[in-house]
């Protein structure tokens, strides 16, 4: 019940340091293409808005895809440090450090944050940013492998053909028995979202809108489905047909086709059947 006094010396020190750190950051930014983009402050002219968050998300899509583990998906928690450079001839380069948390909030354990550092390079407004990303371990390797294998078994036990309309449903609900399907769809979508991201466009997965085919008689899971992606900042809903082949511990194989043009009959949401290159995987 003693009154709580903030430790005076520490408080004074932090008050003294703070403006100096800010000044140092500002001083380090030279006039030309380089700009120190601190999270929360408006970027310099020429730098796309929200570029740090966008780059972090792209890095995570790529990371998740390469990890190939539907039980170990990560999402962005917060950008901690970042710098972005724009070269009008070449493109946009972003260096960042950010924290992550696990995607599947219903999963037990692992409540701590992971940390990643990444370099993301956007070639002038072209998609498929070049990404170099390393992350600290968030999930215990053995647990992750066990969960992947469990998910694999759950997928194999699903009765096909599946009568899926939408996951999540309109009210945001995902049936627990269908959660493995969703996680695998998210994994496949990560590949697509990474490839489609540019310095001006980024994506979120909205819904698994239909399952075309789920083949589980072979060893691998062969999954053909359609997702809806929400595109920023156009606000468009992009249907993408994705075909993936997955086996725990093996690299993910993905083939996809997104509906690019606005269909004249309806604004958004129409899923037109579109031809996909058969048997050829986009990532090979």
């Amino acid at each position, binding site marked *: 019940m003693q009154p709580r006094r903030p430790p005076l010396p520490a408080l004074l020190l932090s008050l003294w340091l703070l403006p100096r750190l800010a000044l140092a950051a500002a001083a380090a930014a030279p006039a030309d293409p380089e700009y120190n983009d601190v999270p929360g402050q408006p970027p310099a002219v020429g730098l796309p808005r929200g570029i740090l968050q966008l780059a972090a998300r792209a890095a995570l899509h790529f990371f998740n895809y390469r990890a190939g583990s539907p039980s170990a998906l990560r999402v962005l928690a917060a950008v901690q440090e970042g710098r972005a450079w724009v070269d009008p001839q070449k493109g946009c380069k972003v260096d960042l450090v950010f924290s992550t948390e696990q995607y599947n909030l219903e999963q037990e354990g692992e409540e701590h944050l992971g940390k990643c550092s990444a370099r993301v390079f956007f070639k002038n407004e072209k998609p498929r940013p070049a990404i170099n990303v390393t992350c600290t371990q968030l999930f215990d390797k053995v647990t992750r492998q066990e969960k992947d294998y469990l998910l694999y078994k759950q997928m194999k036990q699903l009765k096909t053909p599946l009568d899926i309309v939408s996951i999540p449903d309109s009210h945001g609900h995902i049936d627990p028995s269908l959660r493995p399907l969703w996680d695998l769809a998210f994994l496949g979508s990560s590949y697509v979202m990474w490839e489609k991201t540019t310095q001006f466009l980024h994506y979120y997965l909205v819904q698994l809108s239909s399952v075309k085919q789920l083949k589980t008689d072979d060893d691998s899971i062969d999954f053909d489905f359609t997702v809806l992606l929400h595109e920023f900042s156009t606000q468009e809903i992009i249907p993408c047909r994705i075909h993936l082949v997955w086996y725990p511990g093996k690299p993910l194989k993905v083939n996809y086709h997104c509906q690019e043009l606005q269909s004249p*009959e309806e*604004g958004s949401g129409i899923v037109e059947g579109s031809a996909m290159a058969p048997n050829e995987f986009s990532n090979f």
Partner: protein
Amino acid sequence: MKWLLFFGALIGAGICGQDKFFGDQVFRINVRNGDDIRKLTELVNLDHFKLNVWKSPSTFDRPVDILVPSVSLLPVKSFLKSQGLDYSVTIEDLQALLDSEDEEMLHNEGRERSGDFNYGSYHSLEAIYHEMDSIATDFPDLASRVKIGETFEKRPMYVLKFSTGGGKKRPAIWLNAGIHAREWISHATAIWTARKIVTDYQKDPAVTSILEKVDIFLLPVANPDGYVYTQSKNRLWRKTRSRIPGSRCIGADPNRNWNASFAGEGASDNPCSEVYHGPHPNSEVEVKSVVDFIQKHGNFKCFIDLHSYSQLLMYPYGYTVKKAPDAEELDDVARSAAEALASLSGTKYRVGPTCTTVYPASGSSVDWAYNNGIKYAFTFELRDTGHYGFLLPANQIIPTAEETWLGLKAIMEHVRDNLY
């Protein structure tokens, strides 16, 4: 202090296992200095009194609240008197208070369900309209349901007016929700807020004092046609459902249709685009109805637009990076509101002007409001940050509404105290 130990021995046995609070009281004790604190600490640390500290001091001039079991009342009073510690009894019988709260809660639970209306789930347009009517019927001196126009498909547009002004035109606050059909958490938060206002009036000093100075107009469904479409045909529909002459595509983005840098950056002239601004400003009857109402009223001081998702609290401008004249004040207010919101469950919102916080957007409602003399113009992008996005699970409705309420109150209190 031997008498304390004696009493303690007597009391100890009796108090164990007590889980009701009959006759228990809450003492508010003034502590003036370190000596007082020390004495009080001594008292509280005496186990046998089973004292429970409710509010401990962080500075000297703040009182300490302590729950005193009924059996300890006499010795504790004696102690305080002998030590010269000043106190008052703030709760005379805790159980009685708890019982009456329970009663009220049960009563409210009945209210919360209002027949079929469960605030923790998403509802049809009819259900929302019906609930608005119920609120107005239940609180006729405070709330009334007002029709402000009709949609493209001829549905009514209803607003709830909250006023204690008895017909006099007071300065007013406009709460806008559901302008984008797929952002269901916006409509759900709005109707919860409506119920919250009437329930807390004359109970919460903040709400009461706000309504003493200003009127509140709440539009829970600013785009009824779109909302119905998301329920029946396409959950991810955003725009209105108007027929666009010369196009087979339907609908304009009602938040690009306002007369504020109309057809500028951040909107599209392609009727098939999700951010199509429409053929001309206020072409969408849903937008025109609000514009006409607000202009006719002439005394609005605040306009808040609820959207989802991204967890942002923004102020003008959307159509330009140029700083709004009141940007500093609006930023301060927004930061306080975001802090208040976060205080409930830790939900973090980013704050800033629309254009640089999210993206350029022309023809938006808050920019129009601001340019038309409504200084306190804010956009909320509610939960979440992309995990569920538009498909926010229903079990997050009430937590979202509760935290948003704190943010809204912070803004409304500032408006109340800064009328111009």
